[in-house]
């Protein structure tokens, strides 16, 4: 009997529960794998705006979606009507990327609340809302769901929330994107990158935010390729194939806790930021910098300086420990100088000045000072005067001397851009400051390494011949590269200042030699006269340094001076363009010019194919050419840019040119032919 009673009670309970759920159907909605209920207070306050929402409880592994659902899927739809309240737009918490098979969707892992604002109408004592909902819930298969929900709540003097619901509401409200103006990031640019990509650049500190496109018609939901460059973060999004480009596009950026909305970023011109292909890994650049630095030891303008130093070390007969100390002091000199130059470059870059490597040779006083220095060293080597004692004391045995040698080595090495240096320096000019400085130090370490090695290893040093009279002859021999350097620098000065450069430079050299002669031959009075003459000549010479009024960029033969508009026009006309970025002080440039570019064979090829030849002369500081180089990701010369007819992007030729490379521009078959001919 009692059993039967229990059963009846149970049945009654089930029926009651069923009735209750029918009655409550107004207050919630459900479908396969989804239950939706209100997140709303028990009572509203008259005239006060409250944020409420729909809370979607979703089965594990099933998802509902963001406003832009991504490659498939669909955002839920809310149709809310009320006579007794003003209802705001749906606020969408920021999503996550949900990869499903070959697609990416934008939605939520787990439960989510879609929020909106509601304000009770004036005078209403209840607030009622009716909402029609449609949603899509997917794991791999998708199931649409529909539902109707009604909300009836009193409007009273105070709002009262179920504390759990309010916490839920607050949690998701926190994730709703706020206006981008208050975000840690600033939108810098938005540009098309080829036909299939769109690049967004943000600027800001710290971790790169995740970014979601608002417009699924324009961009796919695939995770964008990310690249950072200092404080700038470049996102490259995949475009929906064939989509039309709107005027603006919107994005949401999130740090994982909060989010910001960038509603309408206008499309700008393609930015000149280097393309991803050039964003080479830092370690590779550092390696290249080190190798480039090591190669610099063999450059004609560095080798003599190092020889002097090594020469001094052997001469003084210091032991291994002493030599190692010298080597390390030398390295310190090199590194400090590289760091200083790097710091200067970074400071100038920060200041917006368009400068490039080798810029110290764009300054006439620096060039003149170098001429004087090398001239004195050469004279001393030749035995004209015993500057030796002092120079050797300075650049010789003392620690300051090793340090000075290091400084000198860097200064004269800089313009001898080794084949590896171009890319490393170009990267340094666009890299974040810390990485750029690391590159500079890498170059310095490369330059210093062979010398330190030689100092540290007695075995290697023993291979060097013992000191003897041959060293005098060797020293005299070393004078000749120095004389050659003087001639080269004089020529640079001539290019900088015109004919007067030659005159000022050579007159100063003459005055210095005369002063030396006076000082050596006429005891005290002579020495005083010598000093006076030297000082007078120096003042006069440096005072006379003036740039020529105009800088005639002479068209040399077929070569046109750099003119951006002419280049653009030629490219628009479908003409091929070859640009030789060069400078008088760049030896590699001059060699390439003489051996390859200005040869009749190359000129004929260029003429036959109607190529616009441009010589961008960077001998003097020219900000337009500096900018053009930066766009190519370079910061030093030589650079050879080849625009094939109709080509969007230039092809950059190697820094050391060969004739067959020019031939190859016009006929790929002949490259193969030549290459085969060359193989023995």
């Amino acid at each position, binding site marked *: 009997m009692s059993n039967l009673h229990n059963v009846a009670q149970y049945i009654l309970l089930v029926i009651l529960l069923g009735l209750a759920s029918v009655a409550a159907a107004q207050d919630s909605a459900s479908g396969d794998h989804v239950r939706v209920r209100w997140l709303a207070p028990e009572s509203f306050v008259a005239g006060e705006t409250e944020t409420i929402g729909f809370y979607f409880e979703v089965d594990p592994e099933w998802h509902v979606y963001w406003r832009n659902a991504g*490659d*498939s899927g*669909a955002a839920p739809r809310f149709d809310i009507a009320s006579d007794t309240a003003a209802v705001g737009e749906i606020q969408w918490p920021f999503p996550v990327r949900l990869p499903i098979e070959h697609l990416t969707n934008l939605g939520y892992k787990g439960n989510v609340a879609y929020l909106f604002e509601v304000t009770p109408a004036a005078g209403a004592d209840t607030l009622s809302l009716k909402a029609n909902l449609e949603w899509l819930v997917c794991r791999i298969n998708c199931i649409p769901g529909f539902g109707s929900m009604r909300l009836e709540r009193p409007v009273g003097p105070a709002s009262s929330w179920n504390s759990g619901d309010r916490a839920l509401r607050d949690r998701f409200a926190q994730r709703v994107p706020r206006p981008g103006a208050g975000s840690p990031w600033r939108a810098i640019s938005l540009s098309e990158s080829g036909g299939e990509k769109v690049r967004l650049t943000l600027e800001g500190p710290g971790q790169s935010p995740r970014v979601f496109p608002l417009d699924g018609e324009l961009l796919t939901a695939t995770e964008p390729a990310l690249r950072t460059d200092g404080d700038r973060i470049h996102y490259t999004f995949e475009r929906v194939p064939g989509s039309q480009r709107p005027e603006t596009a919107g994005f949401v950026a999130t740090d994982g806790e909060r989010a910001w909305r960038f509603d309408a970023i206008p499309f700008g011109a393609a930015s000149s930021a280097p393309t991803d292909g050039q964003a080479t890994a830092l370690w590779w650049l550092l390696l290249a910098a080190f190798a480039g630095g090591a190669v610099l030891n063999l450059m004609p303008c560095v080798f003599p300086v190092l020889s002097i130093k090594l020469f001094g070390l052997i001469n003084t007969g210091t032991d291994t420990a002493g030599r190692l100390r010298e080597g390390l002091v030398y390295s310190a000199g090199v590194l400090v100088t590289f760091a200083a130059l790097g710091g200067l470059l970074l400071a100038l870059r920060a200041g917006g000045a368009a400068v490039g490597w080798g810029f110290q040779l764009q300054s006439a006083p620096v060039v003149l000072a170098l001429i004087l220095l090398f001239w004195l060293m050469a004279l001393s080597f030749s035995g004209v005067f015993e500057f030796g004692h002092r120079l050797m004391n300075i650049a010789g045995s003392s620690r300051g001397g090793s340090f000075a040698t290091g400084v000198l080595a860097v200064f004269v090495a800089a313009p001898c851009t080794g084949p590896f240096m171009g890319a490393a320096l170009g990267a340094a000019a666009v890299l974040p400051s810390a990485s750029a400085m690391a590159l500079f130090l890498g170059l310095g370490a490369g330059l210093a390494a062979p010398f330190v090695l030689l100092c540290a290893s007695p075995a290697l040093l023993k291979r060097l011949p013992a000191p003897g009279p041959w060293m005098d002859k060797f020293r005299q021999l070393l004078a000749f590269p120095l004389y050659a350097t003087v001639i080269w620098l004089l020529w640079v000065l001539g290019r900088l200042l015109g004919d007067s450069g030659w005159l000022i430079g050579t007159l100063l050299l003459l005055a210095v030699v005369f002063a030396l002669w006076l000082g050596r031959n006429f005891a005290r009075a002579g020495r005083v006269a010598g000093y006076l003459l030297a000082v007078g000549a120096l003042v006069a010479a440096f005072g006379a340094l003036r740039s020529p009024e105009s800088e005639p960029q002479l068209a040399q033969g077929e070569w046109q001076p750099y003119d951006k508009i002419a280049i653009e026009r030629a490219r628009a006309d479908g003409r091929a363009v070859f640009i030789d970025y060069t400078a008088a002080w760049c030896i590699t440039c001059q060699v390439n010019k003489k051996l390859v570019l200005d040869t009749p064979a190359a000129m004929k090829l260029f003429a036959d194919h109607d190529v616009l030849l441009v010589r961008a002369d960077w001998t003097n500081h020219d900000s337009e050419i500096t900018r053009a180089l930066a766009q190519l990701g370079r910061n030093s010369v030589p650079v050879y840019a080849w625009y094939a007819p109709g080509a969007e992007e230039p092809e950059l030729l190697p820094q050391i040119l060969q004739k067959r490379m020019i031939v190859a521009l016009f006929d*790929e078959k002949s490259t193969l032919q030549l290459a085969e001919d060359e193989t023995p």
Partner: protein
Amino acid sequence: MNGRHLIRSLLLLLALPTLALAAAVPGEKAPDFSEVDAEGKTHSLADYQGEWLVLEWFNQGCPYVQKHYGSGNMQALQKKYTAEDINWLTVISSAKGKQGYLEPAQALAEAETHKLNASAPFLLDPDGSMGRAYGAKTTPHMFIINPQGEVVYAGAIDNNDSANPAVIPDSENYVAAALDASLSGEAIDVASSRAYGCSVKY
């Protein structure tokens, strides 16, 4: 070994993944295909040279496909445009064992129950080669190819990604608009859109 040659080979290698992700892009040549229909007849792009061709991706289990078939919307479009000598192929790219996969006999039966009005009973692409070549993401994903073999439309069937058939009368049908514009010699207003629906089950 020629250095340029090596570089070119390397570039080619790098380009391979991009080729694998090729898609039908409005304004560009349509990717080739050659697939067998439920009746065993082979259809390839070349067969439709000089003619208009509509491609539709299908999965009978997808609620969005059901939206357009249950309402008769898709069949009406098929009927209307095939009557104007436009070819219409409905493709199933579901892999064997995945939702929507049909054996030829089942496909014939489905064509019957769905009152399919396409030019051929379902084109069967179980290896997904055609779907991947076109970059078909969803069912229904729609493509229109002109007589020159160029894609002129790629994307959704209309502008309303609701699964509710009730919204169809108020939706802007992109496929119909593109076909009507093309047939009357006008420019296509919307040539691309986000394809909505269920993911293709490759």
